[in-house]
C-alpha cells in the first residue's frame, strides 16, 4: 500500500495495492475481457494455483480492543508465473469466480512486466470511476436517511 510509483504509466497512476483493489472490485466481465487481450501477447503462462479457499476474517472489538475471528470468507485465488518475462501475477476475489481471479492475476503479471500498460491503465481508470460512482450513489442514498435528534 505504501510502495512507490515508478515510470510505468500504470505504476505512475496507481500503487500496487490500489491497482489490486480496483481489479478485485472490478466488474468481472470487464476484467476477463481485458485479461483475454493481455494474454494474447503476454507469452506462456504457468498456473501455480487457481482455486477457491477460505480466508479467516478477524475484527477488532471496539470495547476491549480484542481481535477475534468473525468467520471465514470464501475467496477465489489465482497465482501465475510468466517465465519469459520473469514475473508473477496474483489475484484474489471474494466469491467463487475463478475466472475473475485468473483475469486479475494475468493483469497483475502484465503490470509487473510493464506490458500493455495503456490498455491496463484504461481498464483501471474505467473501473475506478465505476466503483467510485457506485459508492457515491450508495452514500447519497445513505445520507438521505440522516436524522437530527432533539430532546424537548
Amino acid at each position, binding site marked *: *500500500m505504501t*510502495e512507490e510509483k515508478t515510470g510505468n504509466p500504470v505504476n505512475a497512476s496507481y500503487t*500496487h*495495492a490500489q491497482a*489490486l*483493489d480496483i481489479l*478485485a*472490485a472490478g466488474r468481472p466481465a470487464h476484467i476477463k475481457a481485458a485479461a483475454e487481450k493481455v494474454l494474447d501477447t503476454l507469452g506462456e503462462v504457468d498456473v501455480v494455483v487457481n*482455486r*477457491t*479457499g*477460505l*480466508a*479467516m*476474517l*478477524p*475484527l*477488532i*472489538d*471496539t*470495547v*476491549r*480492543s*480484542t*481481535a*477475534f*475471528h*468473525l*468467520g*471465514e*470468507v*470464501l*475467496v477465489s*485465488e489465482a*497465482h501465475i508465473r510468466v517465465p519469459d518475462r520473469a514475473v*508473477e501475477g*496474483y489475484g*484474489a*476475489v*471474494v*466469491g*467463487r469466480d475463478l475466472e475473475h481471479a485468473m483475469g486479475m492475476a494475468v493483469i*497483475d503479471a502484465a503490470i509487473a512486466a510493464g506490458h500493455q500498460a495503456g490498455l491496463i491503465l484504461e481498464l483501471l481508470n474505467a473501473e475506478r470511476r465505476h466503483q467510485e460512482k457506485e*459508492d*457515491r*450513489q*450508495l*452514500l*447519497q*442514498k*445513505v*445520507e*438521505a*436517511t*440522516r*436524522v*437530527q*435528534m*432533539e*430532546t424537548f
Partner: protein
Amino acid sequence: MAYVATRGGEYAIEQAERLFRADLGPITRERVDAVRTGLPYLIDRLMGEASLYEPDLAALALAQAGGDLYEAILLLRAYRTTQPRIAVADPIDQPDLLTVRRISAAFKDIPGGQILGPTLDYSHRLLQVDVLQGNDYVPEPVIPAAKPAPATQPSLTSWQKAQGLIPNHPGETVAPEEIPDLTREPLLFPAARAHKLQSLARADTGGTLALGYASMRGYSAVHPTVNELRLAYAPVRLRHPSGTIFSAGRVRVSQTEVISKVKELQLGFSATFGWNEVKVIAAATLDLASNQPNPHPAANEEFVLYHTEPIESSGFCIHFKLPHYVTFQSTPDALRRVKTDKDTAAVKPAVTEKLAPQQEEVAL
C-alpha cells in the same frame, strides 16, 4: 450392548429422501438466484451462523434444505470443511467499515451524526396483500441526498474513552495467525474473550435472542441500551505474494455495543457476518451480562456459549429421533415391573382386609 437390525432400511431411506426432495421440486439456478436476491437478510443470518460468507452457496443451501435453516447451516458448515484455509485476512478495525447505518440510543449527538440506513424500525408493518391479486409491489425509490454520506464514521467508543466515560482497554498487538480460533481449538472456560466473541458471532440467532431477552427482562444485573449499532461493508484484506496488502472485496457485517450502568458505565460488544441487528444486540447484552460477577444462569458464559451453538444444539435435539429402542427398552421394562408390583400389592391388602382390618391401618 445390543443392536436392532433393520430390514428394508436402505430402500426406505432412499425413498424417504426422494419424498422430501419431491416436495421441493427441481433446484434450479433461477431458484437459487431468487432466494439470494429476494431473501438477503435470511442469507445474512445463515452465513453468520454457518461462519462462512458466500451468498450464492448460502442461497443454494437454503433452496436445497427447503428453508430449514439448521439443515442449511449444516450444509454450509460441511462445505466449509472441504475448503482449504488459504489466508487469514488483516483484522478489520472500526475506521475500515463502509457504514450504511449507524445509530445510538444512548447518545443523541454522536460524532458523525445518526444515519438510519436501511431499516423498517419506524415503518408501519403492512402486508401488501394486493400482490396476491397479481398487482406487483414496487417500492418507491430513495431520493438521494445531494452530497454523499461519509464512507466511514468515527468511533463512538473512542470518543467516550477520550471523555473518560468508559475505561480504555489498550489492545495487544496480535498477529492475525495468532488470534485464538474456535474452529481449531476447543472452547474452554473461562473462555478467552476472542473465543467468546467468535462463538457469539456464529451463534444461533434464536438462541441468542432467547437468552439475551431473558437478561434484558431482568435475569441479569445489566439493563442494556444500544450505545452504537452499525451495518456496514468490511474489506477482506489479503496479502499479495509480494507483501502488498489489498482488498479482495467487501462483506456485509453488523456490530453493536450496548451500554449499561452497573457501578460505572460498562459496554458489551458483538459483531457478526451479515446484517442481523437482533442477534448482535442480544449477543452484546450477553457479553456484558456474562462479564458481571456471579451472573444469572441465563447469562452465564458457559451456559450461553454451549446452548447457542446452532449445529450442536439442533443436532442434539434432532438426534432423539434416531433409534433408541435398546436403551429405552429398560424404561418400559421397569414401568411394567412397577405396575406388576403395584397390582400385586393392591390384590394383597384386599385379601388381608377381610382377615385383619387393623393390620391394613398399620400398613398405611
